[in-house]
């Protein structure tokens, strides 16, 4: 069983390949996110709500786009045989796909999260929003990672679509519940940044879910000695 990449240079080439293929579309999403963040930065109640909603939608869509384009489309459009013909092992391919997708998602997520933090500190928006915002971003990253791992591990389009939709439906309830968390909701409209035990526990739970999903998928792929 091989859990770690056999050829780091090859993994790097696969990551760069996916990045180059999807960078133009990604740029479009980043522009959309900047528009959403501009609306949030206006500081008006209507623009804040519109901007926040647009940002969440765009992050969900970009996650789904990354997975569908670089994994499912590679199978559908039969570019995978080309990649399999290169000197790569299934483990190299797995790490290449995992890290490329994380990169593709973390760029817009990083832009959104970083700009949100900047807006919170540089505009009249209450600083107490910081903890809540980061919890939502962390949850979105978790949803993306789990969807990604399921798509890599389960080569069934039906299961992939089901997983992605099921996880997306959790986002709305999480946004509501996170706002009512002990020590989070109480400071939403204040300038105090409080990392309550409940908030830290949610962050830890997210990290645990991500680590578990990646761990299981790595184990599944590590057992593969051939692609097919």
């Amino acid at each position, binding site marked *: 069983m091989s859990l770690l990449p056999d050829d780091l240079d090859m993994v790097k*080439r696969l990551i760069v390949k996916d990045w*180059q293929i999807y960078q133009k579309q990604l740029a479009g999403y980043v522009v959309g996110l900047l528009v959403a963040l501009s609306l949030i930065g206006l500081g008006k109640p209507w623009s804040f709500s519109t901007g926040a909603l647009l940002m969440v939608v765009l992050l969900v869509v970009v996650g789904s786009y990354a997975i569908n384009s670089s994994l499912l489309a590679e199978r559908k459009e039969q570019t995978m045989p*080309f990649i399999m013909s290169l000197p790569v092992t299934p483990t190299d391919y797995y790490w290449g796909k995992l890290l490329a997708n994380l990169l593709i998602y973390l760029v817009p997520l990083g832009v959104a999260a970083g700009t949100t933090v900047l807006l919170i500190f540089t505009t009249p928006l209450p600083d107490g929003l910081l903890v809540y915002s980061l919890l939502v971003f962390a949850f979105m990253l978790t949803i993306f990672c789990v969807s990604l791992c399921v798509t890599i591990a389960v080569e069934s389009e039906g299961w992939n679509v089901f997983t992605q939709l099921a996880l997306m439906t959790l986002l709305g309830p999480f946004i509501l519940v996170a706002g009512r968390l002990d020590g989070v909701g109480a400071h939403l409209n204040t300038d105090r940044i409080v990392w309550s035990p409940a908030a830290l526990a949610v962050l830890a739970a997210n990290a645990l879910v991500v680590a578990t999903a990646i761990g299981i998928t790595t184990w599944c792929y590590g057992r593969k000695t051939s692609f097919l």
Partner: protein
Amino acid sequence: MNYAIELKGVHKRYDDFALQDIDLALPTGQVMGLVGVNGAGKSTLLRVLMGLIRQDRGDVAVCGHRLPDAQVAAKRDIGYASDDMRLYKGQTLRWHMDFVRGIYPEWDEDYAVRLLGRFDLRAHQTLRGFSHGQRVKALLLLILARRPRLLLLDEPTTGLDPVARGEVLDALAEVLRDERRSVLFSSHNTQDIEQLSDSITFLHAGRIVASEDKEPFLDRWRRVLCRGAWREDLRQWPGVAAARHSAPLIELKFADFREDTPQTLEASGLMVESVESMSLEDIFVTSVREGAMR
């Protein structure tokens, strides 16, 4: 003798198909054509040779690398193309060339540029705008320009128009002039195989039913036209693969024709009208219909 490919007792079983008892050897520098109907197991065999499929049992060695364990080393020496392989349609051919060049230090840029001209391909055009023939030629360019020791080609000329097919075959013929390079290619087009191969392997229902040098193989097959009374026992004659009566002629196809066969036929009361060579296609069709080599 050095072998580019060696398979011994290879089995691979699926629910509805099995590759069985595969023993095959391709000497270095030779070209082998793989012939079989759809579902015969040609693609499965080529994937085993790429290390993409792990055999249930048996030994597979390609360019001295045991598979699938040494699949990375083997794939550095193999150029593989299959008819279900596609390139990234949103990227240019130049992007693909740079991607492959970065992986294979043996990449020959001068040769790649020559192939661009020969195949009439534009490097800065995206693959989306390529016809099927151009996509096949682009794929072959990417493989040939890195000078692999072994080419595994799964239906390389399928779906090509006659002009594109000719260009691809010419390029392959040029590659074959290098005696260190070996090729195994499957095709439905037996003309291609007859034109390029040194040896021929027939695969049927997951088994190798014949694997021989081309010339003696073709030489053993003959179509004999006779006149005389039709008898059912003609089908059971030694070496007869197929017998057909279309009065007034009797057509006998021999899988094992011998010099004295015409005399033997005459002695049995038939008058031999002609003895003709058979094309590989005719041999293939006869074999599949009559189970001549099973």
